[in-house]
């Protein structure tokens, strides 16, 4: 009889402990906001690791275009090699290795440049050219609909510039033309 009572008490105690722990965990998570990985474009140095270190076959990092910052230049330094043979869409003139940037004539001498995200794999060659010689309107962002949300993002772990941050899931992207202060404001240190 004493043993049965002991086992019954042990069972109740274990159940109580488990329920308490569960309640405590729920209490701790009450203020947590779901977050996603993102790249701070003001820290990114276009090293190319976004293309090679993502766990996905095709990186979840894509180039995006901040059109208000763009000069719509004939010689777009994010589209063309530094000294292009000719200003046309020939592969030998382009920086992008996979023809993911589409060049559309607007009016003399302005052209619009659009990113084909189905082709872009985040190598940052265009971002480097645009940042170094242009207005910096092309930059890399993690696409939250593609990213699988690794607890330890392999790209973030290997980013030489510590450019990866966490953003609220309902505000996942950084809009570059709003400036670096706005980028820092709602981003959490990764």
């Amino acid at each position, binding site marked *: 009889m004493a043993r049965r009572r002991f086992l019954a008490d042990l069972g109740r105690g274990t159940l109580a402990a488990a329920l308490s722990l569960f309640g405590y965990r729920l209490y701790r998570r009450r203020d947590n906001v779901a977050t996603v990985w993102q790249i701070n474009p003001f820290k990114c*140095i*276009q*090293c*190319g690791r976004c293309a090679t270190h993502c766990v996905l076959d095709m990186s979840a990092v894509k180039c995006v275009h901040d059109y208000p910052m763009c*000069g*719509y*230049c*004939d*010689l*777009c*330094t994010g589209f063309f090699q*530094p*000294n292009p043979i000719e200003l046309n869409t020939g592969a030998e003139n382009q920086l992008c290795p996979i023809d993911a940037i589409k060049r559309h004539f607007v009016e003399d*001498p*302005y052209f619009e440049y659009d990113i084909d995200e189905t082709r872009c794999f985040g190598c940052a060659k265009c971002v*480097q*050219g645009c940042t*170094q*010689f*242009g*207005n910096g309107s092309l930059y890399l962002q993690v696409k939250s609909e593609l990213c699988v949300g690794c607890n330890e993002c392999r790209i973030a*772990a*290997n980013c*030489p510039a510590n450019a990866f941050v966490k953003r609220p899931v309902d505000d996942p992207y950084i809009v570059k033309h709003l400036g670096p202060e706005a980028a820092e404001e709602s981003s959490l240190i990764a």
Partner: protein
Amino acid sequence: MRRAQSWFLVVSGSALACLLSGCGREEMTPPEALAVADTPSVRALPFRLTQVKTFGALPAGAAGICSGPDGGVIVAGEAEVAVLGRDGSALRRWTISQPATCVAFDGADNVLVGHARSVSVFGRQGNSRGSWGKAGRGEGEMWLVRGISVSGANVYVADAGNRCVHRFAADGDFIATLGRRDREAGIPGIVVPSGYLDCVTIEEDGVLVTNPGRWLVERYSGTGELKAAFGKRGLSAGQFPGCCNPTNIELLPGEPFLVAAADKSIPRVQVFSPNGEVMACTDADVFADDASGIDLARGVGLAFYALDTSRQTVVVLELEPAGPVAAAELEKSVRKP
């Protein structure tokens, strides 16, 4: 049991230490900068630009400079204008109500400070003489003033927002617009992809204007006729790099004149003859890598000032011959002050 426990502690402690120290992370090496064409031709140019001195202590957010009284320089910033001597010493300062984008001195008693959509006029002592200019996209209206130049009774205002140069009288009365596209007149139009535009007056009624989106320096008459242009896109000395250069321009004494033009993305200053032949180019390390909108101002003789907007310093550059042939040429062709 105790031995197993101690082994467990040793192994887990080692694993934790390894994790914290970053074992398994790859070595971080910064990437190479985007390859830029080598410019050995800078060394082969007949003249060189020597960095004589640099001075700081400028008004915060310095954005524009111009020749000042007695060979000095006037610097305009976000909230202040400073008149500096040739050695960089502050002679006079006064506050302004709006951030300045450019500044000009008429050589007599008027300092014109350009703001985004207006021009303020001050006396040499900083006493305000009012302001003029109307914001807008229409004829004679200003949207983003980035350069200003005064010659006699004419004030030329480079408006990057409206992609043109306005000509005003000294009191602000609008006279003409220069640089708008006109196919019949053979004017291709000024293209401004990055918000930089500058102009400088030429004594015999005319103005030189940068056309950064077309990689040109253009010369217009006071009535808007396009007289001449030079320039070519490219990375080498004598060419204008990237998507949109040159950004700033100044005249140097020469026969008839020399043109100093500043570039961004490869921050440098180049000096050209009036027909576009490159004569000198600064070395790679004169300006900060991210300097842009390097404003220029004439100094004394062949020395001139360049504003490093990133480091917030004024660099004094001097044009010197690189060899005896160039020295003789300089003696013959460059007008001494």
